[in-house]
């Protein structure tokens, strides 16, 4: 019985070490393309900062990674989140969308923020500064609603 526990522990450890060798592709880029949301619109500074902190980690080409992203399988988990997030919405590529799709993205952003579905609870658990206060929420929703009406 004791021996089998040892073997299992060993296999687990070898596996854990093994997966560290598998390379990941970090979501990082030095340049901000001119299709970026902030460059296309005149976004107030406070809202810019909030979007950057609360959304851009998963919804742009540049993630500010935490230290534990150096360890597998955490890095995979985050990679998946970011990939999915970018597929849904990439602020860096905002202007490549048609007006129709911009309007429907904005509608989704508003409803996700309104219903506290975004930012994800698993994200704000660690990134406390990403949480929207009620006023911040209202400000950002007002800003986006106005933007949508102008489209």
């Amino acid at each position: 019985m004791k021996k089998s526990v040892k073997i299992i522990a060993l296999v687990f450890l070898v596996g854990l070490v093994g997966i560290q060798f598998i390379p990941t592709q970090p979501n990082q880029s030095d340049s901000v393309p001119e299709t970026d949301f902030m460059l296309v619109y005149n976004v107030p500074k406070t809202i810019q900062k909030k979007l950057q902190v609360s959304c851009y980690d998963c919804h742009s080409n540049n993630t500010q990674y935490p230290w534990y992203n150096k360890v597998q399988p955490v890095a995979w988990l985050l990679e998946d989140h970011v990939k999915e997030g970018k597929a849904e919405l990439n602020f860096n590529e905002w202007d490549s969308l048609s007006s129709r799709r911009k309007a429907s993205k904005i509608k989704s952003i508003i409803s996700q923020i309104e219903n506290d579905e975004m930012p994800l609870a698993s994200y704000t658990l660690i990134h406390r500064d990403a949480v929207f206060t009620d006023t911040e929420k209202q400000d950002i929703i007002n800003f986006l609603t106005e933007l949508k009406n102008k489209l």
Partner: protein
Amino acid sequence: MKRLKVTTSIMAIALVALTTTSCKDAKKEHNDEDGHHSEQMDDNSHMDGAMEEDHSKMDHGDMESSDKMMGNAQHASKSTTLIANYLDLKDALVSDDKDGAAKAGGTMVTALNSFDASSFSSEQQKELKDIIEDATEHAEHIEKSPIDHQREHFDVLSKDMIDLIAITGTEEKLYQDFCPMYNNNKGAQWLSATKEIKNPYYGAKMMSCGSVQKEIN
């Protein structure tokens, strides 16, 4: 027991060593660039396709008049499958059937992908491409979401369908309905084949909420 301790600590050291020296940062720039390239190529191929169609239209100028005569009926028939799928989806939401709606959403994705816009003018084609792109995204979400999300996406999908039908026309009798309460009283539209109001946004909760905004045909 002692041996286990030794192995564990060796493993731990190896783990730390590997994570600090991992070489995974090297690849990043490359991948970003590749991503952009493939996107650009996609765009070009779309444009090529559109240009070829223009040429073929010019070559067969004498066929155009007969095309135009058939135009309306032919155009309207393009949207028939889509409308049928949309109405299935609407019915599923009316009966609070999440799985049925997901299935109908999937069918709609297929129908949208195979929508043939080639007989429309280039301006209409551009508009249709926008609509279809947007509608596809919403149909995809409907396929894999819980029912309240399905309804949110159905709201925008309905708008897309209304705009699409405005271009293609239809031979079917449709009612454009409006529920003023949905989405925090911002209201939402939908299409139905029957005059009686059956609300897809609230289902059994508020079956008869809404009114006919417009009759199509």
